[in-house]
């Protein structure tokens, strides 16, 4: 090992340490920004060290840096906070594609079977991360329909694709000089990414994004094996592990197993047969104002509808007015509210809501009985009491925010159409529930006008 190589390797060790500490600091709100910076410095060191390798021709590397850097920086600067889920999905997809290309390019120097297997893995995982993320991007940005796409025989088609991947992967390892098998593996991996994500409905996207995040790490890992590079393996494994943890948290918050999310086509397959008794009691903005004015404790529970209506700033304004009126205001955030893990938190942070005012489900539920008014903004399934009470409900057992335990519940909703899975929500028919129909932002602005 020459001095140069040793220096590069040692720099990568330092980079790995920075990634590890960076991730650790990312785990707590006070230090998160520093953690992200630390991990960025680690990345910079790793890249600089890689550039010190002997015999490099820089022209194409530089072109890659400039093109990628400009696109990445522009996208990161311009993206709206409400469009964050699809942005993360897109970045993720690019990472996956990069690993696919590295695996493919590593074929030139590949000798033994072990390397060939890791090349196939990096192509497979990278490819399905890429197309899977693109489909997720399409669903999240509503470029394509966000619903679950299911068709008869889907499982059979998918099984055939998996078998095809396995068979062509084996053939590729046996005959690496025959590139047909390589192209088949690439093509089928890309196809598999599409097929794996189309049957998953929009509301299950938090799980899908976390899982794809994990895959992009694992793809980097596989690419690291293919080119014998430690830092790729370490960094990729850290990302893979963090993605898997997030995936687990999301699945738990929906009380569903990962395989149920991935394979059931929940969004269209679930049919709810329960009928709910009671009547809908609509409320005007004027009357809502009088109730809110008298309230001393208010809980706001946002959902994806708040993101769609871009209502986070109006929410913050109303929250301030309520506080200056002497009420205590808290937010109850369900782990899977929105389209990605922590979606609501990001939007409310954008509107300057302090993060210690955002309570997690387990913290707000015990307080719910002392709350005068719970305001549900564009959330549906995450506040559905059927999850507690109706054993036949498709979401029975899912932990929900118990807004129905509050003295009064306001539900801000566009119309009576049910949530994504077509599940009836008995909350709307409860004695203490009032429906305020209309665009969430309009309604909130109406309330704000009444207050000021």
């Amino acid at each position, binding site marked *: 090992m020459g001095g140069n190589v040793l220096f590069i390797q040692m720099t990568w060790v330092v980079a790995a340490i920075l990634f590890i500490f*960076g*991730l650790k600091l*990312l*785990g*707590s*709100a*006070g230090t998160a*920004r520093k953690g*992200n910076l630390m991990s*960025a410095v680690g*990345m910079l060191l790793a*890249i600089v*060290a890689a550039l010190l*390798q002997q015999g*490099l021709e*820089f022209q*194409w*590397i530089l072109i*890659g840096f400039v093109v*990628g*850097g400009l*696109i*990445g920086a522009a996208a990161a600067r311009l993206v709206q*906070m409400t469009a*964050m889920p699809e*942005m*993360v999905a897109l*970045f*993720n997809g690019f*990472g996956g*594609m*990069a690993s696919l*290309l*590295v695996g493919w*390019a*590593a074929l*030139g120097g590949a000798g033994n079977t072990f390397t060939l297997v890791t090349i196939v893995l990096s192509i497979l995982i990278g490819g399905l991360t890429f197309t899977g993320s693109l489909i997720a991007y399409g669903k999240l940005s509503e470029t394509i329909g966000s619903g679950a796409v299911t068709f008869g025989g889907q499982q059979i088609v998918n099984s055939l694709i998996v078998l095809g991947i396995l068979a062509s992967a084996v053939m590729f390892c046996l005959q690496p000089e025959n590139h047909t098998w390589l192209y088949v593996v690439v093509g089928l991996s890309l196809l598999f990414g599409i097929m794996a994500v189309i049957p998953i409905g929009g509301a299950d996207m938090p799980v899908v994004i976390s899982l794809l995040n994990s895959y992009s*790490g694992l793809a*980097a890992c596989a*690419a690291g094996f293919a080119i*014998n590079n*430690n830092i790729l*393996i370490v*960094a*990729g*494994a*850290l990302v*893979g592990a*963090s993605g898997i*943890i*997030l995936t687990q948290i999301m699945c738990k918050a929906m009380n569903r197993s990962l395989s149920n999310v991935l394979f059931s086509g929940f969004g269209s397959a679930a049919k709810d047969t329960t009928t709910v008794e009671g009547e809908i009691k609509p409320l005007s903005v004027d009357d809502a104002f009088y109730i809110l004015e008298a309230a001393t404790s208010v809980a706001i529970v946002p959902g994806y509808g708040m993101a769609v209506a871009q209502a986070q700033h109006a929410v913050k304004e109303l929250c301030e007015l309520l506080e200056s009126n002497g009420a205590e205001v808290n937010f109850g*955030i369900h*782990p899977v509210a929105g389209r*990605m893990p*922590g*979606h609501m938190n*990001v939007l409310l*942070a954008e509107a300057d809501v*302090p*993060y210690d005012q955002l309570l997690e489900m387990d913290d707000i539920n015990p307080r719910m009985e002392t709350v005068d008014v719970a305001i549900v903004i564009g959330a549906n399934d995450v506040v559905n009491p059927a999850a507690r009470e109706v054993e036949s409900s498709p979401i029975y057992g899912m932990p929900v925010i118990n807004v129905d335990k509050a003295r009064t519940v306001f539900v801000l909703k566009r119309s009576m159409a049910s949530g994504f899975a077509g599940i009836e929500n008995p909350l709307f028919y409860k004695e203490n529930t009032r429906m305020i129909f209309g665009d969430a932002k309009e309604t909130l602005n109406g309330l704000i006008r009444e207050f000021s």
Partner: protein
Amino acid sequence: MEAVFLTFILVLSIFLGFELIHKVPATLHTPLMSGANAISGITVVGAISLAGSGQHDLSQWLGAGAVALATINVVGGYMVTDRMLAMFKKRGG
């Protein structure tokens, strides 16, 4: 032997990852995800040596493409995470 050594590193890193991240407040789920996502752009390190091989063959072009894509992932990922984290404030802070 190399394979065993690399697998060793893989297994230890995965355990380390689980230990590091297993308790993260929900507020930070998005930044954690996009920050980790930026780290997955580490592929750029592998892509650099392929893109700079000077062979002018398919493998170099693939490497150059990988450098560009992974750089999008790295630059975009870190910047967007920082932008989000800059917005997180404590009450009264």
